[in-house]
C-alpha cells in the first residue's frame, strides 16, 4: 500500500486546546411551537462550597437545540427535588404541563472524581400510581416504579463533566423520543481566519461548537471534510501544493496521507458506509466525473462519464447507490446512480436547480441545496412520495450535513457578510445560528455516532 506520511513544511498541526480560537455559540433564530415542555431541576450538590459543575445548563441547552424540547424556567419549578423520593406531590409537576422531570445530585467520590446520579420521572404516571404501581404476576403482587423512565449513577472525572452532561442529554432524548440522541457527536468544519499567515484551518469540535481543535492550518484553501464511518479519520481536499489533492488524516494521531493527486480536480471525497471505498470527483480525463476508489488496493472505478459537470457524490446508507449533482440536463440537479447496474435517474425537479444532495440516515429522504428565483435554501424531499419542503429562510445556504440520528441538519450560510454555521431541525421548525468570533466558518460535516 502506497502510504505517504507528509512532512510538515508548510502545514502546522495542532491538537492543543489553547489554539482553538474559533469557538461557536448557538443563537436561536426561530423557536418552535412543537417543542415539548420538560422540567430540568438543577442537580443538588451534596458537598460543601460551590458546586463543581452545572450539569443542568448543558443538558437544557442540548434539549433546546434538538428542537424537540422546551425546558421550563427555573422560577416556575414548584420545588428542587434531587431524587424521585423527594418529590412530594406529582400533581404539581403534572400541572406544569411537563412531559418529564429530570432530577439529580452530585457528590464527591474521591479527589477529582464525583458521583453523579439522576432520574427521569414521568409526573403523570407518578400521579396515577402514587409513585408505585402494582400488578399481579406469577400469582403475586409486584410493585414497580414505572414512572421512573430512566435513572443512573456513575463516577465521573471532573475533566469529563461536559461529556457526561451530553451523555445525560442522550439518555433523556432517547427515553422520551425513542430515537438515539446525537449530543455526543462532533462536527468538522473549515475556519478561515483572514489576514493571517495560515488562514485556512481544519477544525473539529463538539456538535455544539465547544472544545474546538485545530487539526490542520494551511496557507492555501481546505475543502470538503468527510468523516470515516468509525469517526476516527477525516478525508478532505487541500490546495497546499497549489493544486487540489485529497488527504486522509487521523484525528487523534495527526497521521496524514495523500490519497490522490491526479491532474486537475481531486474533490468531494465521501467514505462508503463500510469504510472500504472513497467516492470522489476527478477531472483527469476531461470533464469532472464521479469515481470510486477501493482504499485497500487504490484501484479506481469510473462511475459517471459525461461531458458536463458531475460532482458531489454521497452514498446512500445501504452503500449500493450514490447521489450526485449533474448538469447533464442543463441546470444542476441531483441524480442517483445504482452502482451495480450503473443506471442513472434524476431525483430532483423542484425550483431552478438542486445541488449537494445527501440521503437521510433512514434512506427515506434527500436533503439538498435548492435554488429557486436566485435564492439558495436547504430543502428536503421524501422518497418515494416526492414531497418537497424548503427548510431554511437564510441566504446562500450550502454544504448541508445531517446528524447521525437524522434529527438535525448543519449547514453553512451568510450572516453579515460572513460565512457562519447554522442548524435546522429536519422538519424546519427549529433554527439556530452558530456564529464564529471572526472569520468564515464553512463546510460543516457532522460525525457519525462516536
Amino acid at each position, binding site marked *: 500500500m502506497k502510504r505517504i506520511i507528509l512532512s510538515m513544511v508548510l502545514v502546522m498541526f495542532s491538537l492543543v486546546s489553547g489554539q482553538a480560537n474559533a469557538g461557536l455559540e448557538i443563537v436561536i433564530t426561530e423557536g418552535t411551537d412543537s417543542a415539548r415542555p420538560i422540567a430540568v431541576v438543577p442537580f443538588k450538590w451534596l458537598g460543601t462550597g460551590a458546586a463543581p459543575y452545572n450539569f443542568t445548563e448543558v443538558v437544557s441547552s442540548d434539549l433546546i437545540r434538538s428542537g424537540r424540547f422546551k425546558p421550563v424556567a427555573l422560577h416556575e419549578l414548584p420545588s428542587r427535588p434531587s431524587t424521585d423520593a423527594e418529590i412530594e406531590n406529582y400533581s404539581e409537576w403534572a400541572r406544569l404541563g411537563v412531559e418529564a422531570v429530570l432530577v439529580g445530585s452530585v457528590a464527591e467520590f474521591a479527589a477529582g472524581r464525583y458521583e453523579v446520579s439522576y432520574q427521569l420521572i414521568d409526573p403523570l404516571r407518578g400521579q396515577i400510581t402514587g409513585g408505585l404501581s402494582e400488578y399481579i404476576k406469577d400469582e403475586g403482587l409486584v410493585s414497580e416504579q414505572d414512572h421512573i423512565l430512566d435513572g443512573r449513577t456513575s463516577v465521573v472525572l471532573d475533566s469529563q463533566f461536559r461529556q457526561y452532561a451530553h451523555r445525560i442529554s442522550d439518555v433523556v432524548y432517547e427515553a422520551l423520543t425513542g430515537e438515539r440522541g446525537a449530543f455526543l457527536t462532533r462536527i468538522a468544519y473549515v475556519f478561515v481566519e*483572514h489576514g493571517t499567515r495560515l488562514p485556512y484551518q481544519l477544525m473539529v469540535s463538539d456538535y455544539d461548537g465547544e472544545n474546538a481543535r485545530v487539526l490542520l492550518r494551511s496557507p492555501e*484553501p481546505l*475543502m*470538503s471534510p468527510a468523516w470515516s464511518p468509525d469517526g476516527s479519520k477525516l478525508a478532505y481536499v487541500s*490546495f497546499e501544493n*497549489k*493544486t*487540489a489533492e485529497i488527504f486522509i488524516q487521523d484525528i487523534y494521531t495527526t497521521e496524514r496521507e495523500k490519497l490522490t493527486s491526479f491532474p*486537475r*480536480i481531486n*474533490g*468531494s471525497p465521501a467514505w462508503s458506509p463500510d469504510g472500504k471505498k472513497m467516492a470522489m*470527483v476527478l*477531472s483527469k480525463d476531461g470533464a*469532472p466525473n464521479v469515481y470510486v476508489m477501493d482504499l485497500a488496493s487504490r484501484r479506481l472505478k469510473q462511475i459517471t462519464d459525461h461531458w458536463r*459537470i458531475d*460532482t*458531489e457524490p454521497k452514498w446512500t446508507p445501504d452503500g449500493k447507490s450514490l447521489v450526485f*449533482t449533474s448538469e447533464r440536463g442543463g441546470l*444542476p440537479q441531483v441524480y442517483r446512480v445504482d452502482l451495480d447496474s450503473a443506471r442513472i435517474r434524476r431525483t430532483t425537479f423542484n425550483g431552478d436547480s438542486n*445541488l*449537494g444532495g445527501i440521503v437521510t440516515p433512514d434512506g427515506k429522504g434527500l436533503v439538498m*441545496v435548492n*435554488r429557486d428565483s436566485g435564492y*439558495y435554501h436547504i430543502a428536503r424531499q421524501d422518497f418515494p412520495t416526492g414531497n418537497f419542503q424548503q427548510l431554511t429562510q437564510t*441566504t*446562500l445556504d*450550502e*454544504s448541508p450535513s445531517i446528524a447521525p440520528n437524522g434529527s438535525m441538519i448543519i449547514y453553512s450560510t*451568510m450572516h453579515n*457578510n460572513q460565512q457562519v454555521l447554522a442548524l435546522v431541525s429536519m422538519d424546519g421548525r427549529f433554527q439556530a445560528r452558530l456564529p464564529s468570533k471572526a472569520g*468564515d466558518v*464553512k*463546510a460543516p460535516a457532522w460525525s457519525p455516532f462516536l
Partner: protein
Amino acid sequence: MQISKVIKASIMALSVITLAACSSTSDDVSASASASTQAGQATTEQGVETGAADRILTPAEERARVREQQQQRYADLRKENVLYFDFDNASIRPEFAEILAAHADYLVRNPSAIVVIEGHTDERGTPEYNIALGERRAKSVVDYLQSLGVNSSQMNMVSYGEEKPVVRQSNERAWSQNRRAVLVY
C-alpha cells in the same frame, strides 16, 4: 508588490530606450542641425522655428517598427492577467480577446514559459460545484490560448472555485469581480 515594481521599472526602461531610438533615427538629420545650432539660436532670436521631416523608412524598417509597437502594446496588455465572466458562464467575453492574444504571443515566442490558469467563481452555489465551474472557466481560457497556437504543455489549470474571492462581500458588484480567471506566470 516587488514583482510589479520590477515590471514597472522595466517598462520605464523600455520606454526610455524606445525614446532614445526615436531620437537616434533623426541623428543624421540633426548632425547637420547641430552644426548650425549656434546659427539656430540666432534664428530663434529672430523668431523663426525649424522643423524636420520624417525620414522615409524602408519596408523592413517599417515592419520592425510596427512589430516593436505591437510588442510594446502586448507587453502593456500582458500586465492585465485577469478575465471576468458572466454568472454561471465560462465564455470568454470579447473585451478580453486582445489580452489573451498578447499572452498567446508571449507564450508562442517563449516555448519554455509556463502559465498557470486559475479559475474562480462567486460564492453562489455549492463549493464543489463551483470547483467544477471554476475549472470550466480555466479550461475555456486554455482552449482559447491553444487556438492561438500556444502549446498545451505550457498551460496548467487549477480551480479554486469560491474559495479565494477578491472581494469578500455578498452583492452583485463583488460577485462580478470574483467570477474570474487569472493567468499566473
